[in-house]
């Protein structure tokens, strides 16, 4: 009896499963649809439109010109623009290196020297100023760096300097503002990676006679590279596209690409050129992403 019925049950079950699978497909798609549509209309489509804009330069009379590479040619022909792109790349590179070098020992100290139950608090306090408004954060640095600000005041009171130093309104101040922000970000990503490393690896190495430095260099450091790379990539994305920090702290001698983009929008009213510049910036980020992809995939933060 059971034997004769088995195929019928199996057929019925597979029909049920097929129905369930179809229902799954429809329902799954229905649930994700609103989010998908939002991202398509307000994220993907605008980017496509921007690309189209970038290929249709404004003609000298003010109307839209023919489709072509005119804007891209114009960008690379104008030395001020290329210089801004270069400044942005160099500034970002310096910021990435400095903030990683400063954040790594900090994250390492929190992960190894602070008692386990206090680590979360130590980390939360370390990233607390992260939550100030980022316009206000740059302004706060301006306060500290200004000729009559806290730093100059302290230096003067200690007798180190006699005249106030010009600390703000230069590329160094921009880098300082950036590094301050990205130390917090990188401490977070590096710490998250360090605590995932199995402590037994290091113990095993120590047991086999490796010194503290050797076990760090051959075990901890290589295993923490994914966290370092995630931090580095986030730093690149957020740093190269930031307008506020250089605009408030950097002065006007050395402009970064986002400042030039905003000038195109506000002064030249040349949206196609601004689109071209934004896309070139994105291409730089994409190249960085491709170069770092190997490590970014490894990191499951």
């Amino acid at each position, binding site marked *: 009896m059971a034997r004769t019925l088995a195929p019928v049950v199996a057929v019925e079950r597979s029909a049920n499963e097929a129905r369930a*699978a179809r229902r*799954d*497909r429809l*329902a*799954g*798609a*229905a*649930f*994700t649809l609103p*989010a*998908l549509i*939002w*991202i398509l209309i*307000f*994220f993907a489509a*605008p*980017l496509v*439109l*921007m690309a189209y*804009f970038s290929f249709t330069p404004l003609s000298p009379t003010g109307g839209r010109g023919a489709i072509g590479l005119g804007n891209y040619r114009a960008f690379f022909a104008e030395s001020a623009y290329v210089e801004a792109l270069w400044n942005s790349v160099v500034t970002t590179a310096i910021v990435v290196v400095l903030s990683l070098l400063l954040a790594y*020992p*900090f994250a390492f*100290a929190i992960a190894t*020297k602070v008692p386990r139950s206090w680590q*979360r608090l130590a980390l*939360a306090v*370390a990233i*607390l*100023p992260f*939550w*100030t*408004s*980022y*316009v*206000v*954060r740059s*302004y*706060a640095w301006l*306060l*500290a760096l*200004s000729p*009559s*600000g*806290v730093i100059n*005041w302290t230096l003067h009171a200690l007798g180190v300097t006699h005249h106030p130093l010009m600390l703000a309104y230069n590329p160094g101040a921009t880098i300082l503002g950036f590094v301050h922000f990205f*130390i*917090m970000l990188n*401490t977070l990503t590096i710490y998250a990676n360090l605590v995932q490393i199995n402590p037994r690896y290091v113990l095993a190495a120590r047991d086999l006679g490796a010194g503290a430095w050797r076990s760090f260099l051959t075990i901890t450091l290589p295993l923490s590279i994914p966290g370092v790379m995630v931090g580095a990539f986030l730093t690149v*994305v*957020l740093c190269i*596209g*930031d307008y506020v920090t250089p605009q*408030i702290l950097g002065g006007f001698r050395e402009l970064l690409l986002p400042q030039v*983009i905003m000038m195109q*929008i506000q002064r030249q009213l040349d*949206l196609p050129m601004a*689109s071209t510049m*934004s896309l070139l*910036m*994105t291409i730089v980020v994409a190249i960085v992403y491709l170069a770092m992809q190997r490590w970014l995939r490894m990191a499951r933060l």
Partner: protein
Amino acid sequence: MIRFFSRYFGTALATLYMLACYAFIFLPVGVLVLFSFQDGRLPVPPFHGPTLAWYGRALGNDRLMAGLGNSLIVGAVSSALSVLLGFLAAYGIARYIFPGRRALQAFLVLPLAVSYLLIGMGLLVTLSAFGLSPSLEMVVVGHVVINMPLAFAIVLAQLGEHQRRMEWAARDLGASTARILLTIVVPLIAPALIAAFCLCFTLSWDEFLISFLVTRFDVTLPVVIWTMLRGGLNPQTNAVGSIIFAGSILLVATVEALLFGKRRA
């Protein structure tokens, strides 16, 4: 003996380095908050006071308060939309198997890897292409683009297997999908939903660049502060900055308590 000293030395060095880092990280915020209580016209040393006068001025400043009101509305609406859309998408991806699921998941979080400048530029170009005028509604749209992927990721991480059994049980007992969502899924992951809302809100009411690009007359708080900065150093700006800082800390502490507080206990 040497070993003992080197270890002692290492710990001392690490402690010193950590203190230096904390000092560096807190320097600007410390200066900001301290001189918001300055009894004088300039927020620079020497410190006089404390006084709450600048807080009074800030709270009596119509433009600031209008900006604050706009920011609260934009933050609330965009965060609610972000959490709603993010939740639905996360539920669809976690509970149903359909082709292209992984690709869709990757696509939905793509805006997280793009700078705000690019998103703002895209919206500005769209406004211009369709002859629309800048507005607060566009800020809401932009903030949903940047925050929905975040809400989606947070909710997706919290939709675990143990809730799934309860959903099956409810379905067996004849509950409709809508009823399961409202009476089982939402209550079970309510902490994650609230945490996602708070985080989206913090990021939204802080966001400058997109708001700056797609608004003109009716603007959000960060844009008002931006225009105030042209007037130079002013304790009133310190006071506003301190208020925003306090508000954000409150929201982040809520997130922390909701997402991680229970697990530790």
